[in-house]
């Protein structure tokens, strides 16, 4: 069934219904991702969609792509394995701020510096939803609605965009779930850009962070072309309020991909053991 008709966003959705709370920003991200995929010429079966654990990490099952819903925090290494094993596949990774920046934080750093050609979407709601609303690494220090940190965390949040830049990500963007069309554009550009593309999507949690509905008023589109030089991007992002949307950095580092040439046979290799 090699469909020649262009696929629509609906063609990328499965019949599994999301368990996300009505009002959750993740619905819009799902919609944006499927819209983005409809804009690509990539056959559905050549896309692998990888995630970890958390509300947003449920997303692969809501698409009809090849997917892997792994364990908490390890989506990026699974994705790297897929891409490094099968360079012909387009690899997309998605998950939450806790999954990607707390338990998976080390992988995030190394995924940025490894610069394997794939696209990582963090749906950032500044909270752990599936475990009933604890502070995540992006939660502000004075948010005290969690029973685990009733006085607030008291520690500075991670700023994922700046972290990605410092660690060497080759494409960095921020989007807002309330603007799925723009998010779709960012994803299309992220996939097209060689190397590791990181897209932070502000995705409100209406259950534990109802005040995040106000993000709609806070976001504002970037007024400049994407920075292409790290120093320039750092300068700009140092003053960023965390709500600038758009492509914020587009670098030109070559992606990492080991060469694969068959130069010899196993028989030749094992001959070296002859004493």
């Amino acid at each position, binding site marked *: *069934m*090699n469909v020649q008709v262009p696929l629509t966003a609906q063609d990328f959705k499965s019949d*599994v219904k999301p368990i996300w709370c009505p009002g959750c920003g993740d619905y819009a991200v799902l919609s944006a991702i499927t819209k983005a995929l409809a804009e690509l010429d990539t*056959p*559905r*079966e*050549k896309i*692998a*969609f*990888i995630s970890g654990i958390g509300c947003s990490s*449920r997303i*692969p*099952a809501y698409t*009809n*792509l*090849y*997917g*892997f*819903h*792994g*364990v908490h*925090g*390890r989506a*990026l*290494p*699974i*994705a*790297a*394995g*897929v*891409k*490094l*094993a*099968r360079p*012909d*596949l387009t690899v997309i990774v998605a998950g939450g701020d806790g999954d990607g920046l707390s338990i998976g934080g*080390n*992988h995030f*750093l*190394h995924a940025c510096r490894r610069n394997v050609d794939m696209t990582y979407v963090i749906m950032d709601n500044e909270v752990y939803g599936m475990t009933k609303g604890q502070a995540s690494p992006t939660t502000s220090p004075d948010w005290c609605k969690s029973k685990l940190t009733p006085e607030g965390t008291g520690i500075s949040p991670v700023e994922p965009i700046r972290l990605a830049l410092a660690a060497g990500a080759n494409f960095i963007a921020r989007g807002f779930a309330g603007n799925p069309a723009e998010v779709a554009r960012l994803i299309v550009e992220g996939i097209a850009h060689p190397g590791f593309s990181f897209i932070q999507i502000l995705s409100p949690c209406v259950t534990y962070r109802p005040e995040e509905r106000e993000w709609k008023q806070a976001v504002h589109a970037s007024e400049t072309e994407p920075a292409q030089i790290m120093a320039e991007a750092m300068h700009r992002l140092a003053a960023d309020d965390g709500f600038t949307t758009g492509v914020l950095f587009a670098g030109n580092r070559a992606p990492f991909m*080991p*060469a*694969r*040439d*068959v*130069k*010899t*046979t*196993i028989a030749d*290799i*094992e001959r070296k*053991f*002859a*004493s």
Partner: protein
Amino acid sequence: MAAYSVSVALTGSGGAGSMTAGQILLDSASKAGFYGLMTRSMGPQIRGGEAAALVRISSTPISSLDDHYDLLIAFDWGNISRFAAELPLSTDSLILCDPAQGPVPDSIATYGARVAPLALKALSERVHGGRGNMIGLGAVAALIGLPIESVLHVLATQLGRKGEEVLAASTASVKVGAEAATLLPPMPKLPEGNPHGASRWNISGNEAAGLGALKGGIKFVAAYPITPATEVLEWLAPALEKTGGALIQAEDELASINMVIGGAFAGLPSLTATSGPGLSLMTESIGLAVASETPLVVVDVMRGGPSTGIPTKSEQSDLNIAVYGLHGDAPHLVVAPNSSTDCLAATQWSVYLAEALQSPAIVLSDQAMGQSRVIIDKPAESPYVADRLVADADIDGYQRYALTESGISPMAIPGTPGSNYVADGLEHNERGTPSSQASDHLAQLDKRARKLQNFDYGDNWADVEGDGEIAVITWGSVTGPVREALDRARAKGIKAKLISLRLILPALPERMDAALAGVNKVLVVEQSHSQQFNKFLRGHYDLPADVSVFSRPGPLPIRPGEILTRLAVWE
């Protein structure tokens, strides 16, 4: 097996060159037509620490250290007392040492062995650029009856690259050492060697595991360095690169196991290698491989534990974590090679099993066999290669986790049109959709257990050798000394059977029952403190009432004579 062999310990510190001398000794023995085995014992220092090369040379194949060393050559005494316990000597043994290095330390002198002086320093000064370790090597070769030509041949092959001068100095040193040996007390000599051409191999267990992986069809490896497993990965890196595969260095073991899951999901037979601490980090994701039915191989080269433990020394104490370390009911494969040589076949078989059964396989090697270098007959070709049951394109209503009779369901590989699915660590239904229903959970648990339990593992599940009412049940590298002890026992008229378990999981009670037919006494031999293997056996198998256990933790190797003593109790 009980044929004549010679064991030599070469010790020294601070760059004395004992490891190099030991390596050349082993290679020379191979050249002269002997079998052999060399293990290493080292202090924790990166450079300059105390080191012992422990070499055994034999006219028949061996996979065990002997009860004691016939010859100890000390290039210096350094901190030798740190591993004096690893250097057992008999009163017939000979100690060679340079009087200039001072008296024999008490920890060694206590063995009561003969001592002979060898003025390494003075002799080396007679040769331009002379080296004490090469003088010692020459003396050792002459003393044990190893043809000096074979040593010179190996020197020419290995040092030729370093230039004429180095080669000439080493050659002269070896000759001076051999000459000096004529003045030393005699010791039993090796019989004639059997030069063999290219039919023998010189390989370490870790290299063998790497080769087994490659021959089994591994194409993708993710690696994080850890002692004593690193050589598996270091050997695989260039080998994969040259044969169209890839090895990636990961940021940690959490990443390496998950990269391997990704590679396997994407269709390539995939593997990683680690040791205890790394295996601990990997266990959550090995469980993911169980639940998502992703084939992969983890080679665990065991070292002393718990925690950082004793990284450079061997122990069979990861059995529990390999068998029971996964949370939930998580049937998986655990395969244990039982010699350096078997690291090849067992790893290759594990790749085959993992792929055929879409299951993670843990290969339990250990430092003793992994880092031993052996001279062996060229291993026979094994038929086992990765062969995964894959799904066709465009399957209407494709069910990744379909409940088949065998429990194995065709796996769609990304790129296959129309058979997409989402692999999941959440319990799922046949299609792969997350489900917490009792019926789905039970059906999938049954399926995952069934596919392992019903598979035909053939005769590889264990090495069962000999007959008798006594059986020694063992596993892993301890099999070498057990085998040798049983050979000696038979020579004394004690009839006993060897059962060395290669397939640890799944347990095959029917096969064990058959192997134990007629047996009424069992000796379990293992290298752990808490009798992990004995408890494993009792949990999975019916043993006769009369069971005795010889279990000792590392780092001291279990030696044939100790096992023989325990068997003799029953005589």
